[in-house]
């Protein structure tokens, strides 16, 4: 081939084949493309090289891939995205061998959970309130018993004094006012504690 006539320095065919690789890579400029076309128009050997090369690259780009066997694909998913705990995998395999379906998981219904929670909360409130009421009642009883003890103590003091006159005097001037002041005999349960003193 005449390198000077093709516009290539040195080996014209070697330069043309270098440009063919650039062409196949999509990296050839306009001037090089014109020089290459001029060479190919005159060189049957390089033209055949170009045609074979084009066919090879097209064939490689369309080369079909064999399908990965299903067992390999299943193994990949089992070891990665579908990975489960060993006992679950063992149970599942056993069920599959027996032709059984996996048991359906119990589904927890939110409404039922909410109803249970509401009932539990109401029960707690009621117990607290009842306990509070019982405590108040116990306090009132304790105070009434204390008042009664005071009355009986006064009575015992009066009885200790001798003579009917002393007793009469005590009834008229000691016990009677004390009885009037005793809250248990004078609506003491409902009266505020402070008002008695």
């Amino acid at each position, binding site marked *: 081939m005449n390198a000077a006539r093709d516009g290539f320095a040195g080996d014209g065919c070697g330069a043309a084949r270098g440009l063919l*690789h650039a062409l196949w890579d999509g990296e050839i400029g306009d001037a090089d493309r014109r020089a290459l076309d001029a060479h190919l128009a005159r060189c049957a050997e390089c033209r055949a090289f170009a045609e074979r090369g084009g*066919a*090879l690259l097209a*064939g490689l780009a*369309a080369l079909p*891939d*064999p*399908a990965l066997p299903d067992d390999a694909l299943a193994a*990949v998913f089992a070891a990665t995205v579908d990975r489960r705990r060993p006992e679950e995998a063992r149970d599942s395999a056993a069920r599959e061998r027996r032709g059984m379906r996996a048991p359906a998981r119990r589904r927890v219904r939110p409404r039922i959970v909410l109803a249970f929670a509401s009932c539990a909360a109401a029960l707690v409130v009621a117990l607290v309130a009842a306990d509070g009421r019982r405590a108040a009642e116990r306090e009132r009883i304790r105070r009434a018993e204390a008042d009664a003890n005071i009355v009986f103590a006064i009575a015992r003091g009066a009885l200790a004094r001798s003579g009917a006159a002393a007793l009469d005097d005590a009834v008229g001037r000691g016990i009677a006012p004390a009885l009037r002041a005793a809250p248990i005999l004078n609506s003491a349960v409902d009266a505020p504690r402070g008002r008695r003193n």
Partner: protein
Amino acid sequence: MNDDAFRSAVLEHKDRVFGYAARLLGDREEAKDVAQEALTRMWERREAIEGGDGARFWLLRAAHNLCVDRLRRRGARFEVGDGALDEIEAGDCAPDRAACGRETAAAIERALAGLPARDRAALLLREAHGLSYDELAATLGVPLGTAKALLHRAREKAQRALLAAGVRP
């Protein structure tokens, strides 16, 4: 890459990875192991891998490295003789890539099988699987210029193999 993206990437690239390994190793059983291992490794590295082309490049590179390890265990060089590429029949083809003519595909398979493994890897990675030169260089572990020169020589060797086999364009 989340679970769904991983699953999609596996389904999209599984045949590509298996086919690349089968052609490079010339052994379908070994190729199955390689594909399985590469796909599983992608799961372990999924946080650092983007889907689509990122997964394609990552998987091909992983498969290539696994194949090179196996080839070296066979004979200390990144070389392999005629393999079992002829065993890959049109019936095995993925539907979307089955358009290739059976005769041309068979001739190219034979031409590939006669090449050294390194040349075969360069041709497959660049021309069949569309890696860029940068990706090709990274996968082969060579500088960019070396990757280009390697690919150009591989193209010419494959051409000569096709010519010797009587294939005419």
